């Protein structure tokens, strides 16, 4: 499930640290990383429209140089690497390349951005999560910023340090659950299971939680389980902060088109508003 990863990058400040943190997925089966840079056609258009000089060949050259640094690092960690530069609409290109390369996971980083910027531009990550059928691991930049200053190798145990698995017992959640043993292999040792109750009886939910708890303990996790009342997305976000989880794992209901636009799914909201990294499984 982690054997081949697509990592689209814009060479932002935290792009390289995130990539470094991914090497610990090796013990969870990671073999190959596809590095992708998309020359954003809208950005090119705007730069040209603003009268600024744009030299595509030069951009490709600079990109290649930057990718070499990433490439060397990954190769020294015995991972296969493929680099790709394409151009077009960023979200579409990422989704397309993920399909062409037949990867099993897309990893992206996400800034905490200004609301106004979201309104006018939207985020690439949100677009990818909405459009791609693949699981997406979204690494939140400021989670890393908190531990910045320490050794970069620290990213590794930190990203998978404490997993919060939010389940609503649906098939989507079940699919997400399959990733838990792999995360154990990647270094995760603590797990928090959360179910936000909207319906069903308390006893029934507690029974399910207990069974799940035992299942994870068998793998080797230190587990706590919690049954909470309230609005799912808000409770999950609050609980992740309260428990200081490093990663939220959850399934994603592909809501209908209209409903998806109007209210968004729980996972979309968690992705948007939580300051924790999120692994969304469809």
């Amino acid at each position, binding site marked *: 499930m982690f054997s081949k990863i697509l990592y689209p990058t814009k060479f932002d400040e935290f792009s390289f640290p995130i990539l470094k943190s991914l090497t610990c997925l090796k013990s969870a089966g990671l073999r190959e990383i596809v590095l992708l840079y998309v020359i*954003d056609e809208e950005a090119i258009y705007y730069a040209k429209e603003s009268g*600024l*000089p*744009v030299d595509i060949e030069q*951009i490709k050259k600079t990109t290649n140089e930057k990718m070499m640094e990433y490439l060397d690092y990954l190769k020294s960690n015995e991972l296969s690497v493929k680099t790709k530069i394409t151009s077009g609409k960023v979200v579409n290109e990422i989704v397309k390349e993920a399909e062409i390369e037949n990867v099993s996971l897309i990893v992206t980083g996400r800034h905490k951005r200004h609301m106004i*910027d979201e309104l006018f531009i939207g985020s690439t990550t949100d677009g990818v999560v909405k459009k791609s059928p693949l699981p997406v691991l979204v690494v939140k930049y400021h989670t890393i910023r908190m531990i910045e200053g320490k050794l970069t190798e620290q990213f590794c145990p930190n990203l998978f340090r404490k997993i919060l698995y939010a389940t609503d017992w649906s098939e989507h959640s079940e699919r997400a659950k399959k990733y838990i043993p792999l995360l154990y292999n990647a270094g995760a040792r603590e797990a928090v299971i959360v179910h936000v109750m909207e319906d069903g009886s308390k006893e029934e939910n507690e029974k399910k939680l207990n069974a799940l708890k035992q299942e994870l303990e068998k793998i080797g996790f230190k587990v706590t389980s919690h049954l909470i009342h309230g609005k799912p997305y808000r409770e999950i976000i609050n609980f992740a902060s309260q428990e200081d989880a490093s990663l939220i794992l959850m399934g994603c209901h592909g809501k209908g088109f209209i409903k998806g636009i109007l209210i968004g799914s729980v996972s979309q909201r968690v992705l948007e508003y939580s300051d924790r990294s999120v692994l969304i499984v469809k």
Partner: protein
Amino acid sequence: METFYIVGMIIAGLFFGWTIGSHYTGAVMGTAYGAKIFDIRTATLIMAVCALLGATLQSHEVIKTVGAGIIPIEYLTPFRAMIMMLNAALVTAVNTWLKLPISTAQLACFSIVGVGLAIDAPIAWGKTMLPLAITWVGTPLVGCLLGFIFTKTVGAVKKAEKIKRAVLILACCYASFTLGANNSGLAVSVLYGSGTVKSLLLAGFIGGVVVAIGALTWGRPLLEKVGLHIVQLEINSAIGAQFGQATTAYIAALLGYPTSMNQAIVGAIGGAGLARGVKYIQLKVVKEIVINWFVSLIVSGFTAYFLYKIFSWLLGAK
């Protein structure tokens, strides 16, 4: 009903001003952002302040030319002024959506000409439109010349990188100030011409505020999207080009003629390239400018003409 038209005119004008701010963020801040001098927030904030100052203090001549110099002010009823601004706003929105290049100066002026033709108003072809046409053709040429001279000068001065970066910041502030002086008046010119806003200082200030908001809201993410290594320009060319652009448009503003900041920077970067022996600007871009002149003129003139005819028939207003 008149109040309705006045409100419509103000809203459309403000929207148009807002698009001016976002439209030209790259042209006045792109070089400094590309040289990694500013982060995005600082860049757009400085731009907003400088543009507001430029608009308040030095946009008066442009406001007078566009608001009162193309058709006589007695022809400028609130309804007609509303149509002009509505047209400018709509054409900008559609062109942005279709990703067609536009020049806001030509768009605003020909929105007025279009309505002027529809109402049989005498248009100041010789007195105003001819100098405007000369300004528009001259903008990239003068920009090129000044860009060449400034880049040569800056290149000859051997100063530390740190000082040159400070000079580039200054150049971008000057360009932002010029944007305010030269372009923000377009959004408020008919407010002044129709007598809704009587003070030039106040009109300039209003124009400056919306341009500043445009830069801070839509301009900022657009510039951010351009990213750091899409625009690659060495510092001497960046300084020379930005000063060349700003000076060209500033002279035009003092004379009272609005022009395109984008076309000024294309010329100036071309000039900088000539000075450094680098080909920054492709011939294709020059062709696009020429096409742009005609598209902006003809499209906005036509749509303004018909928009007036349609609305005047629908609402029975004049």
